[in-house]
């Protein structure tokens, strides 16, 4: 690992100031992606700005049909939260599937969504539930947030502070995990908002996205068979040693089929 300056600011203002003063600053959240990246010398920031000391970025609140989660909330906290289990169980279940237990004890919601790994789990929920991303300077709608491979609407220095998840009538998440890494080869979250269906997909493309043709089909007829038969264009899908683009497209249909079964069984 290369050398860097380490900071732990107490406020957002101090964090963004440290970032603007640094030659090449990186924000550090739980570090479960960033630290292995630093160890492999794939990144060499001049300054690491640890967000763990910023009080306003923690905590879980529910009310008015929304579950609001601070960006520095760890996956294990989301998985174990009584409030989330009661109001938005799909999210606690999803959080409990991320990586392994030790990773979930460190990794954070904000870190995952800011990094936007194409195979991360949380982006499926941000997209599938139509969440609102709050940052140090503005709010961003889920549909505008994910842009490309590891690329989001966040500007340099902007800090993801909190995410508001609308509570659907019912929802379910299914993923086909890579058996070694537990990252999603494909993961699908299906949510029912009063008969209007949203489908968030992760793992398949360069970033999380809505399966719009499937949404339309399921909004008309919410059955597993419709999910299985839906059109999922594999055009820009990832192809690697784990799965071809066409195989991922099929996995999206199969995971959606299972998610719809789960959702209907609620």
């Amino acid at each position, binding site marked *: 690992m290369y*050398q*860097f300056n*380490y900071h732990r600011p107490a406020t957002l203002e101090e964090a963004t100031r440290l970032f603007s003063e640094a030659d090449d600053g990186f924000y550090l959240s739980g*570090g479960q992606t960033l630290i292995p990246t630093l160890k492999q010398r794939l990144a060499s920031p001049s300054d690491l700005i640890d967000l763990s000391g910023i009080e306003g970025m923690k905590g879980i609140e529910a009310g008015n049909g929304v579950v609001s989660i601070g960006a520095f909330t760890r996956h294990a906290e989301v998985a174990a939260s009584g409030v989330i289990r009661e109001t938005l169980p799909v999210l606690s279940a999803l959080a409990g599937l991320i990586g*392994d237990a*030790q990773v979930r004890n460190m990794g954070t919601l904000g870190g995952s969504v800011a990094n936007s790994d194409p195979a991360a789990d949380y982006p499926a929920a941000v997209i599938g539930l139509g969440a609102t991303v709050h940052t140090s300077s503005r709010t961003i709608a889920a549909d505008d947030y994910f842009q490309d491979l590891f690329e989001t609407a966040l500007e340099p220095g902007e800090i993801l502070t909190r995410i508001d998840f609308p509570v659907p009538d019912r929802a379910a998440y299914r993923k086909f995990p890579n058996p070694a890494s537990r990252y999603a080869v494909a993961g699908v979250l299906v949510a029912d908002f009063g008969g209007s269906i949203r489908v968030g997909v992760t793992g398949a493309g360069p970033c999380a996205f809505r399966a719009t043709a499937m949404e339309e089909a399921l909004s008309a007829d919410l059955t597993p068979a419709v999910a299985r038969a839906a059109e999922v264009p594999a055009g820009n899908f990832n192809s690697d040693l784990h799965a071809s683009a066409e195989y991922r497209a099929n996995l999206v249909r199969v995971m959606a089929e299972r998610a719809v079964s789960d959702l209907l069984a609620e």
Partner: protein
Amino acid sequence: MQISLTVNGASHALDVPANTLLVDIIREHLGLTGTHVGCDTSQCGACTVHMNGSAVKSCSILAGQADGAEITTIEGIGTPDDLHPMQAAFRECHALQCGFCTPGMIMRAIDLVEKSPDLSNQAVREGLEGNLCRCTGYHNIVKAVLLAADATRA
């Protein structure tokens, strides 16, 4: 950078480079070599310790993140004459072969049993997903964790 942390009940103030990993503090600075480095890529779990009461991979935590933390390592849970129930269960069930993964397995298993008192065989297997054993497979490890969970509940 200056950091202070508590390891197995003893306070330490250290001056370390900012890119020092928690596992290096434990092994190199404090000489507690029971915590192992297996893969060094965050996958094998041999470096698992407790930080503020939760199992974490100490090879993926920076010195600054551990500043002010309470750390427990394998050396802090029992003694040769008074084994922790999890250590006793691992011995009873022969849940190890070479022993390299064992400290991490035991630290993770203690955390698992503390947080999930009612464990099934499958839940133990899922709970240990972050710990790899390359010798002997997981059957006896799972047996040991279930035995220790029973002993803890009794």
